């Protein structure tokens, strides 16, 4: 693997994904979970731009990336709203402490 710009970006994508998934596996705080999700989305955004560049269709990649940012902001907003409700009703942001549904 040579050190050209594309590979560096690819490395960045993989790194962000790794951080994101690892974070999802260990995080219990709802706000942090939302942050981790955002890290994952950023990895994807990077990947989309990279894919656009690699296939010679940078414009498409970039426009999609921009749309994804908007769409996932909505998800983040909904997630934060839910987190606020959880904090209000259950008094905690720890997802493990409010987990009652199982089996």
């Amino acid at each position, binding site marked *: 693997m040579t050190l050209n710009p594309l590979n560096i970006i690819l490395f960045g994508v993989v790194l962000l994904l790794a951080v994101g998934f690892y974070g999802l596996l260990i995080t219990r705080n709802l706000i942090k979970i939302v942050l981790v999700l955002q890290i994952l989305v950023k990895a994807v955004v990077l990947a989309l731009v990279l894919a656009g560049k690699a296939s010679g269709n940078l414009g498409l990649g970039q426009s999609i990336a921009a749309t994804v940012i908007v769409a996932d902001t909505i998800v983040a907003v*909904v997630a934060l709203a839910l987190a606020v*409700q959880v904090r209000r009703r259950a008094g905690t942001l720890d997802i493990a402490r409010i987990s009652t549904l199982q089996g």
Partner: protein
Amino acid sequence: MNPTLFTWMIALPLGVSPLVYLAGRLGSHKMELTNIRSWLVRGLALLTLSATWLLFILSWDKFIGSNENLQFNLESIWLRADGVSFLLAAMVLGLGTFVVLFSGPYIAGEVGEEKYYAMLLAIVGIMIGLGCARDLFNLWMWFEAMAVSSYLLVAFYREHPASLEAGMKYLVQSATGSVLVLLGIALVLGNTGTLDMDKIRLAISAASSTPLGLVLAGALFVIGFGVKVAFVPLHTWLPDAHSQAPSGISAMLSGVVIEAGLVAMLRALSTLGGFSVSWGMLLLAFGALNMFYGNLMALRQTQIKRMLAYSSLSHIGYILIGLGIALVNGSPAGAQGAAFHLFNHTIMKGLAFLAVGALMFALLDQNGIHRPLEVNDLSGAARKYPLAALALSIALLALGGLPPLAGFMSKWQIFVAGFQGSNPWLMGLVIFAALNSVLSLAYYAPVVNMLYRRNVGAVVEGGASIPLTMNIPLVILALAVVVIGLLPSLMSWLTEPAAQAFLVMFGK
């Protein structure tokens, strides 16, 4: 007639949705107007859905008359309606209408009633749109929009921690899935330079070998969309979400949302059609796993909505088996059976959740109790609620695959496909599926028994009555389940084009 008429099926509910919200906020500081607002909101929603039905009929007419797919484009965004789109549209519209009808008394007076109907309308439009997407990114957009609206609907009872928990888990898992899908899209884009499904197909069939990136993309699509379709072991959000949502939403989630996810997955996978036998085998494996796991988990449930949620897992399993068989040996029976079972699952599971919802409404909600409905609460319910009990029994027995009910016929059609071609593995799988149906009776039948017990339980004793608007959807859906069970060819106008479109999609 205009071939782009079908886009209005998408635009109308989506466009009216904010109006419903606004109508529900009209003079919201005046408490005495609550009833009027409530009627206005429901009336508007119903009216919109009726108009959408009309559009559906008109565009269907066009579709069948011209015998080709309907297309629409706005700059670079393409929408296309084929048999699968129409199947999904019919399911979504049908169940959506009944849920709106049903939800009247159920949601009346709850905080955020107008949001409920606005979201419901929006999700109907979104799902119809999802079925028509022709571009991978466009598909993802619809998918994400559907996900966001369903998070809000699942967590509708925002004062109950359990609903919030279910909503939160659903959100996190779905968002993870959606990230995976986007990664897959990036891979496809990187490898082919386009996101138009047809062009991807062309690009892939021109290439001599499948790049590893596309294989990875396929895996990401299966898992990413699979979260929404509730493949085992990605299903963990489903029992929580389906049991905690308002019953009308449970019906929508189980009856159409997971199916819409499946359609999205198939659309995405079909672009990578180069190795469709592998897809077929994957679907078969997940199908067998879903069926078995769902049944065994349902066996031990005491809460009826949770039981129904697990039964959805097993029914997705049957559908996957039908699709898998169609992909493995190109059998039209498998595709048509799967399409038929998709449709039947919508009406059966919709009926089951609505009937449970009606009983829950009368037994618990009306008495101000908010807790899950247990199977034991239903003891002797048939005495007091003969109609809801009969509807629930019909739904459960149909889900269990007993004739003369709808589930029997669609399962049969899937089973036929497995035996055609005399592949011993597929035949074994079908026998396994049939034994699973028997296993499922072990948890459906006791509920039916409980309903018809002579001992009227204390909960039933204290129950309120079920309003007429809730009973109407139950009657219609129950009749549909019986009639389709007696005359299975009644639905082939819808399932046959869907099966055809499915096979065309995968290049069979």
